[in-house]
């Protein structure tokens, strides 16, 4: 199975890169883009065929390595 892990800064943490990108988009005329949050995306190829096991393993890896829980949160999709 493949797990996709999306890591972003927590909403409470200021994201200077996202803000700068949003400002650039505004200067290009994209006023409808209210805000941008930049993050990281990981694809994990897993040996398991069980979705719940895949999700559990991806969460463990995200907790231990892929995300820093002090500043980041993550979301997982498996298929």
């Amino acid at each position: 199975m493949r797990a996709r892990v999306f890591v972003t800064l927590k909403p409470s943490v200021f994201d200077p890169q996202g803000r700068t990108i949003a400002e650039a988009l505004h200067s290009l005329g994209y006023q409808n883009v209210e805000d941008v949050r930049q993050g990281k995306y990981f694809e994990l190829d897993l040996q398991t065929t069980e979705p719940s096991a895949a999700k559990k393993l991806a969460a463990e890896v995200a907790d231990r390595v892929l995300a820093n829980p002090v500043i980041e949160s993550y979301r997982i999709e498996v298929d």
Partner: protein
Amino acid sequence: MTFGIVVFPGSNCDEDAFHAAKEVFGQDAEYLWHKDTDLKGSDVVILPGGFAHGDYLRTGAMARFSPIMGAVRAFAERGGPVLGICNGFQILLESGLLPGAMLRNKGLQYRCEHVYLRVERTDTPFTSATTAGTVLRIPIGHGEGNYFAPADMLQTIETNRQVVLRYTDPQGRIDDDWNPNGSVNAIAGLCNEARNVVGMMPHPERACEPLLGGVDGRAIFESIVAWGGSAESLALHPVGARAEGARAF
């Protein structure tokens, strides 16, 4: 005393720290390769600046898995003094040896300049020879030195008086214009609750000789050298243990 300077792939201030310890302060110094698992009898461990493991994933995120970090953690837990400078500070945060995390600098610029730091605490091995309120002028060079801790963690840090250095103006006043990276509460240096592990973004090893534009970094090294002769230091290294360590090396 013996300084152990950890070398990760991508460290680039290891030789500066080695030079300061050995040539400027006349101490023994050993390089500790990141794949080593013993500290070669070090009395103090420095995690130097640079870009350990290319700063892949997050600054310091990969370095915490290097084999040497197990020995560094055990040393810290025994009360051994550990100083993380710049990338070394980031590694201490990722390792959980210090609380909090680093974000990109608020202005997104890599800042390479001299800054002013007010000494907040003198009850750490690395600031013991200074006085509280002293303003030090020491260079920084980093893109991710924007220290962050969630509100409750920050409260605990302040309550425990773990902030060792803050960015200030030349007179020692906190001012956003003199905070180079947006660090919360102007935090430039931090210690653990036991006070033996210290992280700081500025580079004291680059400010130990007049030729390099300033000598205020000497205060950090003078403190740890003075600590080396203290009862606390000697208690950490009973004579027998010292001799055994030397034989192993």
